[in-house]
């Protein structure tokens, strides 16, 4: 019972905030909606027993990426004039309809064919320990490469965003 409650509560608010991210006009509002979305998602992860991932989600995604977004928004200092979207044209409505229909159809077909089964909430005692064991043995090589990727991203973004002399 409580599982259902937790799930549906989380799901509802996640949906709401997702829609909010793409519809509001003010970018700051959208960023905040994104924050809420990510937090709730972390909750879903924790609900499923993936503690480590949930923690990562909060620390990195919410705590760093969205903050980065906010920084950029504030640096750019856009004026409201800038933020006004033009009136959506006819074909945009059409595309919207097509996209929603397409996704619905895909979703329906796919989900229909799944084996029905419950998600066994396997809350193992030490998720972090288990994840770490696998990460540093099987996935050591991608781990290292990703660290180099981060380095590249740092250097790249600094190089791109620097003020030209």
């Amino acid at each position, binding site marked *: 019972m409580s599982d259902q409650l937790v799930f549906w509560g989380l799901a509802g608010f996640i949906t709401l905030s997702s829609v909010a991210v793409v519809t509001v006009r003010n970018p700051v509002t959208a960023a905040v909606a994104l924050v809420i979305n990510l937090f709730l998602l972390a909750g879903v992860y924790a609900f499923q027993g993936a503690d480590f991932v949930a923690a990562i989600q909060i620390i990195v995604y919410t705590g760093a990426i969205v903050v980065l977004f906010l920084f950029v928004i504030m640096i750019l200092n856009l004026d409201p004039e800038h933020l006004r979207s033009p009136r959506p044209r006819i074909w945009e409505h059409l*595309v919207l309809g*097509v*996209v929603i229909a*397409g*996704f619905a*159809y*895909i979703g329906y*077909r*796919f989900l229909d064919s799944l084996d029905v089964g419950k998600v066994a909430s396997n809350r193992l005692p030490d998720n972090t320990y288990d994840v770490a064991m696998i990460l540093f043995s099987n996935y050591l090589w991608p781990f290292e490469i990703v660290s180099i990727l981060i380095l590249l991203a740092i250097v790249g973004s600094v190089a791109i965003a620097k003020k030209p002399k």
Partner: protein
Amino acid sequence: MLIWLVLLFPLVGAVWNGLLLPRHKLLSHSIAVAGVGLSFLAALPLFVSLLGEGAAGSVHLAFSWIQAGDLDIGMEFVVDRLSGVMLLIVTGIGSLIHIYAGGYMNEEKTTARFFSYLNLFIFMMLLLVLGNNMLVMFIGWEGVGLCSYLLIGYWYTHKPNAVAGMKAFVVNRIGDFGFLIGIFLTYKMFGTLSFSQLHEVLAGQESLSPALTSGLTAIGICLFIGACGKSAQLPLYVWLPDAMAGPTPVSALIHAATMVTAGIYMMTRLHFIYYLAPSALMLVAFVGGATALFAATIALVQNDIKKVLAYSTVSQLGYMVLACGVGAFDAGVFHLLTHACFKALLFLGAGSVIVALHHKQDMQEMGGLKKYLPITHAVFLVAVLAIIGFPGLSGFFSKDEILWRAFSFPGVGWVLWLMGLFAAMCTAFYMVRLLCLTFYGKNRSDEHTRHHLHETSSVMWAPLVVLAFLSIFIGYLGIPPFLAEAFHGSNLFSPFLSSVIQVPPAGEVYWSFLHEHHSEALEWSLMGASTLLALGSASFAFILYRNGPTPFLQERKEAFASVYRTLYNKYWVDELYDRIIVRPLKEMSEFLWRVVDLGIINGGLNVLGQSLMFLSGVTSFQMTGSLHRYAVVFILGLMGLVVLVIV
């Protein structure tokens, strides 16, 4: 070991002079002379070792060159009596000419390039005569053609010289085409190009199948085409007179003594093929005889001193080819040897005259040079006597041997003998004419030239003296047997070579007449007849020309005007070639260029390009540049794909 030195010295000389280009004329001259001279010194012991016991000769492999499937060709060299003789001729006479050339080219600013080419030529010629397979010989063959081109066109800033060089090279190339076909045929028939192996195979046959004989005939003819090109026989002789545009030492070395003899050497080297292909040799004999006569008639009326000598060379080469054609390879090589001496002497003497007159070559402006150039005159006289076959000098013995062997060829021998006889008479005539117009009579040069007339430096006349000695005495190596008996001498040359040149067993039947014994009386009378006729012709010329061109001669010229014009214009052969070969080729090239290359190919490409541009213009409307639009299309497409997969 010595053989590598023989080959190495000229190459080093060529490279040194060619790459370092020393500015000092004496230095480049010395390097070049060393290149040839040291090679000659290294060749001497090699040759000595071939006398007596070492008659068999030796084969030396430098390195294995081509190994492709069944084809195995190495850089192989053979030192036997035949190549030994050629070796001495090339390096010995080559050395003398190199020494002479230092004096001749003295007016040039630098001579490094010249001597580099000369040494390179010697190297290539050595490759040719020492090679033990057809491919090494062909490398040398092409190489001497290249050096000939480089040296003829040495003063390339004067366009006719460059053109003459090109003509030499192109005509040679036509001959080389035949040579290559011959090489291919040989390989196809025998699977090897090595002279030793070919000799073994062919000498081991007892009798020949008709297929083999026709194959050998084909090979012989193809290779002979190459010889026609290189040794200036009909119809590929046209480059040699034009080649006189090069410096005179070049004419002496390349176009008298060595390169042009390559064809004769090649045929002698492959005697075992030619002896077994009599029909090919018949062709060879007649081409040789015809060339000898043809060129001799042209030489009768030429006014340029070098042109006379050029046609004389063609004619003498015809003799050598004729000798090969009747199976008398040893006589051919003997004449090659004597001709090298006196023809080189003639050319170098002419060179001395030209230098003394400050590069004037028209005999009509010469005359009476005997008192200005005494030494040159003396040696020149010796050479002229040698070439006309004055008894006792070298030319007498060698030419006479050829005429005799031609006559004793069964069947058509007498025709060849007559051709040779007439050619000898013409030779005597024009050589004495040349001598008279140049050295006797009154001097016809202008004041300025006469003022500067003096004998040439010792660098130039010393080699001439040596050559004169050779021209006198070298003939005694090859006294015909019947004479030898009479004078208690002996023929050294033929037996010397016969260890190398023998009729293969399969051809014994056909060539059995070579061993026939003829009456001495016949030999004496033939020799007497030809000598008398030649001397008579010479005296006739002397009487006519001893005072230079006289009004009497002018009248004779007008009386036979059409004959004179035909001879003077060399039977219009060059014009004929131009009309039927050169001009159609040019026009075809131009057609191909304008219509095919520019029109079709270029036009086609242009059409292609423009159609592509049109197409791209048609489809470029969808590249709006709007990323947004691209994203839309992208996602829609992706979705469509997924739906399609699921459906």
